């Protein structure tokens, strides 16, 4: 959502990394089936220290980073969260805490306010206890309601985020109603993007086109009713599009994420891409990472493109779409995002959509994001340290 007026992602010198996301930990009490954390997250044991994170904050701020996300995993499991927040506030960041709410009690919400936290984004999985608790594999529904009230009592702007998919999209009316009742300032209805755990569970999560169209109608009705009282963002699922999204506003153009072990990434999920060695914040400065590293330069601008992107008159608009989707669907991170109907692999997107039109009776079980599933999905890598090291 960061505006970037005046920035040209294909310019020779990239602009600043305006959006800095710190994934402070992969530890999380929830086990959401659509989590974008890498499926092999359980291999990451060594999280960066407080001092490491404070250095990242200083260096990125010098480059011009201003929007800061504190996320994970569940960032509340870090007991230095207040210290990190205070340091970020002194540096001038606008600080967004992205949390499941677990661990956010009266004492800590007050301490975070004193430290300078600007805003809290609270996730919900659905509007009912049964579905929320099923999808997160935890008993957290009532806790989240309580945390939402705490956020309001302490006068934070509140964004509620609900990841939307086949199993909850038909409940949109009650989800929006719940957000209104809780006093949300913004509601993000984020249709699942199919990477990582969501890709593993894609056949169970992708809604049908009819479900999606009904959801869009419901959202329109509520928007008219709510006006400015609560803004609703509806993030579209790109599997039903024919042109790709301008992913992350362009590779290495706006967004910089640092994962728990210090790996620096130009998008949340890029670590999965083969043939790239991502720099690590323990070994390199943010300046070296952003401007000089091979990984951040690899897909910047349009010079890397092959056909059909290279000669496409829309290449500056969507910048070829998403590299992770190109890899997941077409097995090559340097081809056009297969969402584009000019891609020779677009039929694979259509096939996934076609399967979603009928409710299958033979649905395989959902895979929940937990350390045991992680080790099962990535057994060949078990015990290895951070990628790229």
């Amino acid at each position, binding site marked *: *959502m*960061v*505006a*970037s*007026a*005046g920035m040209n992602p294909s310019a020779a010198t990239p602009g*600043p990394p*305006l959006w800095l996301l710190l994934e402070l930990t992969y530890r999380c009490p929830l086990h959401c089936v659509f989590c974008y954390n890498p499926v092999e997250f359980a291999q990451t044991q060594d999280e960066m220290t407080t001092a490491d994170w404070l250095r990242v904050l200083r260096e990125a701020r010098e*480059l*011009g980073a*201003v*929007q800061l*996300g504190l996320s994970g995993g569940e960032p509340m499991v870090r007991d230095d969260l207040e210290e990190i927040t205070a340091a970020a506030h002194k540096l*001038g960041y*606008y600080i*967004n805490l992205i949390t499941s709410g677990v661990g956010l009690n009266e004492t800590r919400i007050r301490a975070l306010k004193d430290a300078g936290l*600007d*805003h809290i*984004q609270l996730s919900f999985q659905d509007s009912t206890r049964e579905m929320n608790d099923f999808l997160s594999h935890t008993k957290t529904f009532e806790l989240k309601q309580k945390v939402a009230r705490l956020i309001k009592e302490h006068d934070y*702007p509140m*964004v509620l985020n609900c990841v939307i998919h086949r199993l909850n999209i038909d409940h949109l009316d009650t989800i929006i109603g719940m957000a209104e009742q809780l006093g949300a*300032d*913004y509601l993000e209805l984020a249709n699942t993007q199919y990477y990582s755990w969501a890709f593993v569970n894609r056949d169970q999560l992708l809604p049908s086109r009819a479900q999606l169209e009904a959801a869009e109608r419901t959202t329109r009705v509520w928007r008219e009713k709510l006006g*400015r009282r609560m803004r609703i963002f509806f993030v579209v699922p790109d599997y039903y599009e024919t042109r790709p999204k301008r992913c992350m506003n362009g590779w290495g153009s706006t967004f910089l994420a640092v994962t728990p072990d210090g790996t620096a990434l130009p998008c949340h999920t890029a670590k999965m891409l083969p043939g790239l060695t991502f720099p690590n914040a323990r070994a390199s400065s943010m300046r070296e990472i952003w401007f000089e590293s091979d990984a951040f330069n690899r897909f910047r601008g349009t010079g890397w493109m092959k056909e059909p992107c290279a000669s496409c008159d829309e290449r500056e608009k969507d910048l070829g779409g998403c590299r992770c989707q190109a890899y997941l669907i077409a097995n090559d991170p340097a081809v056009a995002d297969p969402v584009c109907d000019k891609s020779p692999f677009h039929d694979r997107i259509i096939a996934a959509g076609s399967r979603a039109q009928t409710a299958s009776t033979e649905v395989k079980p959902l895979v929940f994001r937990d350390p045991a599933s992680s080790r099962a999905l990535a057994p060949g890598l078990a015990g290895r340290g951070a990628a790229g090291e």
Partner: protein
Amino acid sequence: MSAVAATSKPAIGGGFRLQWEPAQKAHVLLYPEGMVQLNQSAGEILRRCDGARTLAEIVADLEQSFARSGLTDDVIAFVKMAMERGWLQVPE
């Protein structure tokens, strides 16, 4: 929406933060997970909207600072637009 008068004292809206960003050479408005990069005139108006100065005082200050006259209509039009977007609020 409340009306805008010469005696109105506009202030930055709740949930927004205005600050100068050297890397962007611009004032920006920050809000949950978002940012608006302001052009020079928008930045100059908004940074004077501190909830203490009246609209008339803000216009006078702008006219003096930039050696211009007749800015009232432009400033009021901008303030109205900014109020619609929640960037500014005028206490009743």
